[in-house]
């Protein structure tokens, strides 16, 4: 990850309305996101997630504080050339075809005209919309529109991708496609800001998660790197032996945690340790049917804030 942050938000406040109707949608939010990082935004409805993203995109302006993207003004055209955006509320022209829509977006994105046909067709195929490319968007389902929106947002390999509820209305295949796409962009050094209510998705995709509530940034939780995560393990047919899992955890430096029903739990410090743990379990004779990142941590943090 580069030292210079791609997105810098410093003491950002944004108010809507005047007088007695004045409402503070964001209140002194400070955070950064670096290159190759996926930063999740989590919070209840009305927490200020979309407002924060809109400030980062330069669609709305801060009442106080500062937002910098690629070290400069988010409204700068140079910044927008490197930007991809999928809004929560998708509003597409109803009569145009998917192909025509992406061609227009390709042109607006300032991509080379000579590569338009190739890149648009690649985007359509990648989104699984090859067959429907010639159909008007009014005939598209919600999931298909969401796929089209993702294709639009990721066109031209943006350096900063802003996704607001990207998998809303998508089938499981679409959800996996989005996850793969985000992972691929991260590997290529892109920064991704992801706002979602799907905590399992956030846990799977994000390096860090920012918890917003009533416009206030409550905390930023590390999900990868130094913070580590909790793995849930389930055996094939019968529960895994706690002794075996405990020994495997100890051998790789993980921490054996109390089980949750039939699932054993181990705290690991990163992907490498998780892989070592699985190898140790298999070598020890354990028949592992399922190994997944635990989302309960995010859920508990979410509801912890809710109680406050």
């Amino acid at each position: 990850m580069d030292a210079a942050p791609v997105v810098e938000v410093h003491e950002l406040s944004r108010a809507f309305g005047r007088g007695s109707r004045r409402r503070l949608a964001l209140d002194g939010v400070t955070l950064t996101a670096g290159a190759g990082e996926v930063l999740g935004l989590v919070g209840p409805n009305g927490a200020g997630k979309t407002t924060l993203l809109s400030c980062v995109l330069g669609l709305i302006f801060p009442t106080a504080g500062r937002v910098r993207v690629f070290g400069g003004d988010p409204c700068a055209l140079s910044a927008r050339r490197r930007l991809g955006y999928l809004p929560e509320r998708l509003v597409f022209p109803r009569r145009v075809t998917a192909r025509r829509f992406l061609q227009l977006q390709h042109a607006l994105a300032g991509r080379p005209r000579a590569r338009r046909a190739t890149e648009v067709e690649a985007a359509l195929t990648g989104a699984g919309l090859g067959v429907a490319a010639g159909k008007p968007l009014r005939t598209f389902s919600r999931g298909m529109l969401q796929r089209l929106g993702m294709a639009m947002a990721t066109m031209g390999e943006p350096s900063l991708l802003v996704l607001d509820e990207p998998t809303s209305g998508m089938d499981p295949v679409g959800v996996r496609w989005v996850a793969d796409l985000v992972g691929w962009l991260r590997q290529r050094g892109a920064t991704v800001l992801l706002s979602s209510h799907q905590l399992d998705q956030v846990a799977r995709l994000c390096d860090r998660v920012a918890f917003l509530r009533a416009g206030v940034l409550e905390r930023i939780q590390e999900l990868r790197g130094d913070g580590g995560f909790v793995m849930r393990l389930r055996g094939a047919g019968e529960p895994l032996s706690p002794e075996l899992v405990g020994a495997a955890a100890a051998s790789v430096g993980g921490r054996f945690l109390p089980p949750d029903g039939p699932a054993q739990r181990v705290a690991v410090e990163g992907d490498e340790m998780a892989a070592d743990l699985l190898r140790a379990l298999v070598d020890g004779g354990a028949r592992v049917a399922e190994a997944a990142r635990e989302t309960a941590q995010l859920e508990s943090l979410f509801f912890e804030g809710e109680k406050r």
Partner: protein
Amino acid sequence: MSALIWATARELLFGGRALILLLSPLISAAFVAAMEMATGTGAGLPSDLATLALTWCRELAPPTAVILGAGVIAGPLRSGEMVLWAVRPITLSAILVARVAGTWLATMTVLLLPWGLSLPLAQGSIPTAELVAAPLRAALASAAVLAPLALLSVLLPLAGDALAYVGLLIGLALARENVSGIAHRVLDELARFLFPSTGFVDELLTSGRCSLEDPLRWAALLSLALLVSCILLSRRELHYARSE
């Protein structure tokens, strides 16, 4: 920007919305005709009041119908689509100009194509000079009207748009009373541009023929209404994006 111009024009032309432009003068003409019938048959209205109402209908119905039609045409701007354009590397003013140009293009195509096609039927009665002068006059007039309007619209958000339009009309009316010579002629032309007569529609409906100048003035008025609507609606759209 050119992509957005063509996309806008295509959307309006093939989306069916531009047909409203064709209908709006007919609707207003029908309205005026109905008022004329009501006053002509003495339908209980005091004659002075009826005449006044008829005059107002004649003068206000066309621009009202046009602006309503323009509102429908510029409707997609309200929907949130503009947010997708605003995050692209294109300035807001370029988006507005492209949207306006595309709308204007569609409007002129819809309005002038039938007239162009009917020219051979006009039995050569239209002077060539008039063919050039009328659209040029309309284009100049629209530019003269739009320049201060656009400037005020940018300087004063939202309320400034309406103020600019109303202020322009009042200023025009007052100025006409106090100037003479060429300035008076220019203002007079602008006033005629802003409040054209529906006479050409009546003439067309009764005799099947009319001069080319009036329809062109109509087209120019439509262009103005569309431009105003686009500016107003675009600003509302920005407001929508900001309050999200």
